[in-house]
C-alpha cells in the first residue's frame, strides 16, 4: 500500500505547544492500522509541492516566529490553495488557524498576510483568551465533543464560506463572543485548541486520517477502532477542568 504523506510545516518555528504530539498521533494511528506513512518537515524557503502530500499540519508559535512564517507562507500560498482544492486534509492549529485565514491585524494595526485556505479574519484583542475548552463539533453530520486548551490574543470571525468546527460548551472559542470554535472549509480544519489536541480527540484525528487516506487511495477507508482507554480517562479529567460534568 502506498504511504500516507504528511507535511509538517515550520516545525522549528511553530511548535510552541508540543505540536509534534499531533504528528505522533497521525503516525501511530496509521501504523496501528497497517498504513505506512512518511512525514516531511518543510521550513522557511522550502517549496511546498501540492502533489506530494495527503495531510498538512501547522502549529502555533510566538508572535515573532509567526511573523517570520507569515511572510514565508505567501510564497507557498497558491500551492497550498491548490492542495486544498484537490482534497488534501489540513489541520492548522492556534497560530495556524490565523495564518490559514485572510489575514491578521495586530495591536499596532499592522497587517500580516494569511493564506486564504479558510474564510476567516483575525484581529488582535486586548487580552488573551486562556483556559480549558470543550466544544460540540460536527463533521460530515457526525457530532462529537472535543476537549482542549486555548491560549490566544487574536479574535477570529468567520466569513460565509467557512463553517465553525463546532459550538463552545465551556471556554472562549474564536472570539469569546459568538460561541463558535474553529473553522472548516473543504477538508481544511482550523482550531485554537493547541498543541497535542489529537491524543485526547482521536475522533478528530481519525476524520483527518480518513480524508488523507481517501485522497491517497481514492477510496473512503473503514478505519478499525483502536484502544481508547487512556484517552477516555484523560478526556474525563480535562472535561472536568472546564467545570463540566462529563
Amino acid at each position, binding site marked *: 500500500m502506498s504511504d500516507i504523506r504528511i507535511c509538517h510545516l515550520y516545525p522549528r518555528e511553530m511548535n510552541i505547544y*508540543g505540536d509534534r504530539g499531533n504528528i505522533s498521533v497521525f503516525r501511530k494511528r496509521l501504523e496501528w492500522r497497517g498504513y505506512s506513512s512518511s512525514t516531511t518537515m518543510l521550513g522557511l524557503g522550502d517549496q511546498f509541492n501540492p502533489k506530494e502530500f495527503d495531510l498538512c499540519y501547522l502549529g502555533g508559535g510566538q508572535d515573532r516566529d509567526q511573523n517570520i512564517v507569515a511572510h514565508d507562507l505567501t510564497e507557498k500560498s497558491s500551492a497550498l490553495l491548490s492542495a486544498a482544492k484537490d482534497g488534501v486534509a489540513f489541520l492548522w492549529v492556534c497560530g495556524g488557524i490565523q495564518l490559514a485565514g485572510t489575514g491578521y491585524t495586530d495591536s499596532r494595526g499592522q497587517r500580516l498576510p494569511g493564506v486564504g485556505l479558510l474564510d476567516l479574519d483575525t484581529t488582535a484583542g486586548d487580552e488573551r483568551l486562556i483556559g480549558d475548552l470543550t466544544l460540540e463539533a460536527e463533521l460530515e453530520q457526525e457530532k462529537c465533543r472535543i476537549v482542549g486548551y486555548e491560549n490566544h490574543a487574536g479574535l477570529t470571525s468567520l466569513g460565509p464560506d467557512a463553517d465553525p468546527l463546532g459550538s463552545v460548551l465551556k471556554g472562549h472559542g474564536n472570539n469569546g463572543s459568538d460561541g463558535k470554535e474553529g473553522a472548516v472549509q473543504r477538508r481544511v480544519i482550523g482550531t485554537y485548541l493547541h498543541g497535542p489536541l489529537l491524543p485526547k480527540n482521536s475522533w478528530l484525528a481519525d476524520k483527518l486520517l480518513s480524508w488523507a487516506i481517501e485522497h491517497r487511495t481514492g477510496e473512503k477507508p473503514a478505519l478499525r477502532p483502536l484502544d481508547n482507554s487512556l484517552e477516555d480517562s484523560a478526556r474525563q479529567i480535562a472535561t472536568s477542568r472546564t467545570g463540566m460534568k462529563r
Partner: protein
Amino acid sequence: MRHIARFLAKTAGQLSRVLGRGGGTSIPGTLLMKLRPRTLQEMARELDQGIVVISATNGKTTTTRMISNIAQKSGFSYVTNASGANLTGGIASALLEKNPEDSFGIFEIDEAALPDLVNQLEPTIIILMNLFRDQLDRYGELETTLLKWAEMIRTLPATTKLLINADDPALAYLGALHTNVEFFGVGETQYGSSEIPHAADSLYCQKCDGALLFSQTTIGQMGHWKCQKCDLERPEPSYTATAITLKELKGAEFKVTTALSTTDIHLPLAGLHNIYNALAACAVCATVNISSSHIQEGLGSMRAAFGRNEVIDYQGLELLLLLAKNPAGANQNLKTVLLSQGKIHLAVLLNDRTADGQDVSWIWDVDYEMIFDRIASLSIGGDRAYDMALRFYYSGFPLDQIHIATKVKDLLSHLPTVAGSNGKVIIMPTYTAMLDLRSELSKAGTTHSFWEEK
C-alpha cells in the same frame, strides 16, 4: 508605624506555622506589603553590602543556594529566600526574618516579578541565567518576558552590575542595553552537541531576525551562536567553564577560567545545568571579591536543593527527585539520568495546578524517548497522569508496561513492588506533585518540611 507593621507581619507567619497551615513562607511578607508597601525598599536599604538577585526559568533555587553556601564560607552575614518563595511576598518575608547583623541579600526572583522587584530592592548585582518556554498560560511568551527585562535594564543605574549568560542568545542581546555588564558561558565541551534540540527557543537573531548558527548547543537554545545575517554573536565571557567532566549522578568537575585565574571546582551536583548554575554563582561571588578558595569550598559542600537532584531514603528504597516543570528542565533531567549506568525505574508525576501551569501541552516538547531503552519500569502519577500516559503511548511505549496511579500514596506503595525494597527509583514530578509527594513521605516519617530549611 514601620516597626508595628513588621511585627504584625512576623507574628502572622509564626501563627501560620504553629497552626500548621503550610510554611508561612509568603504570608508575613504579603501582609506587610498590604500594611506598608514602602517597607520592602526600606528593609532592602538596610543591607549595606548590597543585594544580588537571580532570575531564570531554570536553576534559580539551586544557584541561590550555591551563592549562599559560598557567602557563608567566606563569613558574609546574609539574608536569602531559601524556601524558593520568589514573589514580592516571599522576599518581604525573608527580609522580615533578617538578623540585625545581616548585610548582604541573596534572592531568587520569579521572571515575571523581576522588573518590579528590581525597582524596589535596588540590587547591586542582577544575574540573568536563561529563559526557556515555561507555563505559557501563566508567563506568556518568552518575548513578553524579554521585552519587560529589556525595559528594566534600560532604567538601571550604571552602578548595578549585570551578569548574563552569554550562551542564551536572547539574554546576551540584552547585555548591549547596559554598560556595567559581564558575561559567563560554557566553553567547548564534549557534552555539547551540534544539533538544535526540538524545544529550543530564540533561534532567530534579536537584532535582525536572521537565523542563528550554532557551533555548539548545550541545553535548549544555549550554546555557541552567531547570526548568519548580521554581526551579532555570542559575547566573549569573563567567566568560562572549561574542562568539564560529568561524573554520572555523583556530580561534576570543571574549571572556571577568567582572564586572570583558573579555579578547579568539584561540584557534588549532577548534570550540565548545574555547571551553569555553579558558574553563575562563581561570577557573582568573584564580583563581590570572595576568594576562589571560599568559592571552591562553598560549591564543594553543596547539597541538593529541595527536589532538585535530592536523594530520599524511603523505607530502604532510594528515591532520586528531579523536579521537572518545563521542557528544557525535563530534558536536562533526562540527560542527567542517562549519565548513570544500567536500567532505570522511573516515576513521572504530572499535576496541572496553578503553580504547575494548567496547560499540560509542554510534556509533548520533552524528549522522553531518549531514555525509553533504559526504562526497567514506568510508573505514572499525578492529577493529569492519563495525559502523561498518552504521551508515552503515542511514542510507542507499550501500554501494558505503564503503571498508572493518580494518587501519590498508591504510587509510592507500588514502587517497592517493581524496584525491590532496596532498589532505586528516579522520580520526575512537577512542582505541586513534588509537594504532594513530600507530604506523603513526611507522613511516613521520611523527610522534613521544606520551610525548616535554611
